[in-house]
């Protein structure tokens, strides 16, 4: 029953055009998509590099990255907080309780996931592609572009997984963002707050809105991907 009410409430929330809710949804998307994009830009090349190059200490590095995939968001939030806090080394930037801080924290959280998953796919299929590019005369950049193209369905899964982590986590954004109404309140922090206020219905409704958005984003990405013939 509570669940059914929540569905009804979810649609109300969407069609109600409640400005507050829309702001929250938009900020959520802004923060998670920004951090996913940044993590992708940093993590995909790193994953490819690790997948193709051999060097001393690589094995340990890989295990560290896999371990970082299990870092609790609260810890990431805390670590980032201590760095950007008023008394921290980057305190002069005044980043605490701002959306950029939330993006930074999520980047720290999501990048290991992207690196770890991309790495694994590159180990398997990357060397064939790299060797082909190598023998056809491609330079480093061209090889990278080719790898991105050929592995795009794998990269997409890695990025989707990372995005899933970003949009759904609450621990990190809560600490560095502070859930300030009208400033840094996002869907997950709202959900946590509503929950702690005992308003399960609206909490679940917001959760459903979030899932709906994820579904739409996934559908867009996979349609685009299929249109390119994968």
């Amino acid at each position, binding site marked *: 029953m509570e669940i059914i009410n929540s569905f009804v409430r979810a649609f109300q929330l969407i069609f109600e055009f409640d400005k507050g809710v829309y702001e929250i949804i938009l900020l959520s998307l802004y923060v998670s998509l920004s951090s996913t994009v940044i993590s992708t830009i940093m993590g995909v090349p790193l994953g490819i590099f690790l997948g193709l190059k051999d060097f001393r200490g690589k094995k340990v590095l890989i295990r560290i990255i896999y371990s970082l995939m299990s870092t609790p968001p609260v810890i990431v939030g805390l670590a980032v907080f201590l760095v950007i806090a008023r008394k921290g080394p980057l305190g002069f930037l005044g980043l605490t309780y701002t959306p950029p801080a939330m993006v930074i924290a999520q980047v720290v959280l999501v990048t290991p996931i992207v690196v770890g998953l991309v790495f694994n796919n590159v180990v398997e299929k990357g060397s064939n592609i790299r060797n082909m590019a190598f023998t056809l005369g491609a330079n480093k950049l061209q090889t990278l572009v080719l790898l991105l193209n050929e592995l795009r369905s794998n990269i997409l899964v890695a990025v989707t997984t990372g995005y899933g982590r970003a949009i759904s986590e609450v621990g990190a954004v809560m600490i560095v963002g502070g859930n300030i109404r009208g400033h840094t309140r996002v869907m997950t922090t709202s959900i946590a707050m509503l929950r702690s*206020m005992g308003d399960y219905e609206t909490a679940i409704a917001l959760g459903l809105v979030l899932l709906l958005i994820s579904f739409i984003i996934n559908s867009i990405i996979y349609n685009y991907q299929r249109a390119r013939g994968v």
Partner: protein
Amino acid sequence: GTGSSEESSIILATTTSTENSGLLDFLLPIFQEDTGIEVKVIAVGTGQAIKLGEDGEADVLLAHAKASEEAFVAAGHGVERFDVMYNDFVLIGPDSDPLNVKGLAGNDIVKALEIIKNSGEGAFISRGDESGTHKKELELWAELGLEPEGEWYKSVGAGMGETILMAEELQGYTLTDRATYLSMVGNLDSVIITEGDTKMFNQYGIIAVNPDKNDKINNEGAIKFIEWMLSEKGQELIKEFGVEEFGDSLFIPNAK
């Protein structure tokens, strides 16, 4: 009724202040020794604590939002509400007190809030989560006859501890119960700016959840717990708590 396996334990839904201050850690082992009943503590926001009571997910509530608690009993969710103890709210803020609230307002909390509001550069951090503390804060603003809104007023929708930490980081002011503040004082630079106003009285009540809600509720245990808390021994222990560490009681027992 109660299942035999549940007889030895009850679920207590309470606000974070009682758990984080260490009061329950102090009391509950003694209670268990006396009665054999184990108390499982769910420390959540006041709103959720009351919701857990309404849904029959907890056996007994210990909260500090008198109006909501009375409404809870009036609606038949609880059996009866008893006063247990009180502590008080304090306004905390940066050590430097940039707005000189302390100097200008003395122990007048309403005046203190007015100064913060009018300064134009101060920051007030509100819990914004409809907790007992938040409701108290709204009462005080209502007395000033104004709606707190604007850049200076940050509604953070968070627990007491988190709200204090944000005030600390933002060099702002916030309203907190004394127990939570004292339990965190070692990790804080913020100091008490305003205290002692009679308006800042913070009453805790205890309520057994209506056993008719479902057959899992351990009403017997809940009643034993309430009786114990209200007993001379319970009240004495509450008074004792904190004296050693902070030099003064954190909670003042006041069962009738």
